[in-house]
């Protein structure tokens, strides 16, 4: 449960690349995300959507600017903890760990948090519930390599919910899926917002999906433009 009005506040975020050519990709981005709210960021390829998402998700450092997660300024020392306890990611390429089973993948954030993940533990039961919600409970012991794209993304959604995060980042989560599966995944993500009261920040090319979110922004020329 968040303590602040905003689960995420980005103030004057700049990102400048100097190699291979000098490029001011993000020029003073301001963004605030409330709990239980979905935010979509759209834009043409190469505008810096994924870079912005990674900066907001503490995976990449901004050249300048301040990032607050639930009111706490992100720095070198706390970003891993914040990432583990309050944030979660869903990627276009799913990014599951191939050497492990579906259940192991879902439980991985809990294991990193040093939670008890033995059979019968709270984390284990929660993981089962999440897998049931994404209709993969019967495949929990499958190796993830054996799953289809849609199934993998559902495992990624279940994994994202594992540590009960406040904010989920999704980087083109339906980019590799067919239309029907894509709609299913979109619904699951929006359910996370509505049913679990999570905040969602999604980068997508799918304008229909973006339209279903509470807030929509277009990233263009290094700035965010609200479309809501």
């Amino acid at each position, binding site marked *: 449960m968040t303590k602040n009005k905003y689960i995420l506040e980005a103030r004057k975020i700049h990102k400048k690349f100097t190699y291979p050519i000098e490029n001011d990709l993000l020029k003073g981005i301001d963004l605030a995300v409330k709990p239980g709210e979905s935010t979509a960021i759209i834009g043409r390829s190469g505008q810096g959507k994924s870079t912005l998402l*990674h900066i907001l998700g503490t*995976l*990449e450092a901004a050249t300048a600017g301040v990032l607050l997660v639930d009111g706490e300024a992100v720095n070198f020392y706390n970003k*891993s903890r914040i990432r*583990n306890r309050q944030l979660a990611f869903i990627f276009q*390429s799913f*990014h599951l760990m191939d050497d492990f089973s579906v259940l192991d993948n879902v439980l*991985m*954030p809990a294991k990193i*948090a040093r939670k008890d993940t033995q059979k019968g533990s709270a984390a284990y039961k929660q993981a089962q519930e999440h897998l049931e919600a994404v209709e993969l409970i019967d495949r929990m012991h499958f190796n993830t390599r054996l799953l289809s794209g849609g199934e993998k993304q559902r495992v990624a959604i279940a994994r994202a919910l594992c540590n009960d995060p406040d904010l989920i980042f999704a980087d083109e989560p339906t980019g590799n899926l067919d239309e029907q599966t894509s709609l299913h995944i979109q619904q699951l993500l929006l359910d996370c917002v509505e049913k679990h009261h999570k905040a969602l920040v999604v980068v997508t090319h799918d304008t229909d999906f973006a339209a279903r979110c509470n807030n929509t922004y277009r990233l263009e020329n290094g700035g965010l433009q609200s479309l809501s």
Partner: protein
Amino acid sequence: MFELSIARRYLFPRWRQLSVSIISSVAILVIALVVWLIVVFFSVKDGLETGWIDRIVALTAPVRLTPTEHYYKSYYYLADSISSKSNYTSKTLGEKLNADESDPYNPDDDEEYPKQWVKPDLTASGSLIDPVKSAVAIVSTIDAAKSIRVNDYETATANVILSTSHHASINDTKKNHYLEQVVFIGSLDDNTPAIVKALIPLTDDDKKNISRKLILQSSSTNPHRNDSPTNSTIVNPTEDQASLSWPPTGTFGAPVLLPKAFKDAGALVGDQGYVSYYSPTPSSIQEQRIAIYVAGFYDPGIMPIGSKYILAPRGLVADIRGSIPGEDAPISNGLNVRFDNIKDAGKVKKDLAAAFEAAGIAPYWKIETYQEYEYTKDLIQQLNSEKNLFSLISLIIIIVACSNIISMLVILVNDKKMEIGILRSMGATWVHIATIFGVCGMVIGAAGSLIGIGAAMVTLRYINELVGMMSDVQGHDMFNPVFYGSILPDQMSMEALMMVFTATAVVSLLAGIVPAIKASLLRPSAILRAE
């Protein structure tokens, strides 16, 4: 710990990552090979060194007390030479130890004590300090080593002449051969159980020689004489000789133990001869002879004077000592301090030095461990230098072997880049990532060490059979028995084991650090966006 489960999955991957498995297997195999080689080498080397040192100590003692110049110039020593109670003769340490009185000098009966001689060292109560009895009493109180005990010893020099006429037939008396050698003769006391380790078993030739001597002696013995042999100790008797004793009483002289060099020169157990030394008389210097027979041979190992050091009863050494009066006697003496574990020698020396200081007898004694004896010092230093050199070489070999771990882990890190990014996105810290790859390095090192140690145990168990096979293949002894003995040591050296295991663990850990740091420094954002 999730790091362990991930490390386990990385080290024992499924078939898809077979290349990683092969590389890690090769890394384990190379480490196992190196550990096997080092453990076997050091175990054999330590075993040989221990054997050599055992033999050196068998002839001497782990700690020796030798009288200093202060002792020989002291009133305590000199008083005997002017005392009627001592028959005007200086006493050996053994005699001093058994003397009724510490101070035999009687000013009323004996000549005047020379003024230039040093004054007596007295205790607080005014009695003469007895450095020999005090030293023996102090040694028995030292608890730095188990079963500590003390004996005096004497060493003299003389010439040994042995008849080595080993006739093909007892009737053939035409051929006579002699062995002659200047030797050191050490007194053998019954408190040197370690000498048993150095004794060489009787050969068939020895047994034949003993039988021959018995038959010769028997044929020359008048059955009606009173000194005919009794049937006490028999060495491998035949039925015909069962009534004979060895050695025949009063006919063979004093028994001596000779070093292996005599055996190599053709001497056998049972050979007879004499020791020869020169004794001054009022008009001339005369040769004196004492009859001896060879009671056995021992292996002095690599002791520098080993080929010239024979062991004889105390009485024989005393006879030589008595032949030349005063300080010119060709003799050295002292106290042998023996105990169970020679590794306690340093502690015993330290405690003795402190106790002697407290008792006021420190100036009388030079305390040496077996590592400091004049004739062993260089050898022990050489052994220590070799040990340090071989340890350094071993460490370098281990480092080279463990460098495989670096290669293997770098490949693994590159292979698992994406998973590193995924773990970082889920909140794994750089420490978590470094731990995963560090554990991989340690497991490879530990697995290699365990396999190598297991192989070394098997090798040591059958080392003499293996060496025998290889000797057969090349047609001559693989290792010269003069230096290495007839069989190689087969006990695993715990010291070597600990050294190798520790070195491998530390080097493996260090080898794991480099790729672990590389893995932890990967930027998750760059990895995740790479696909």
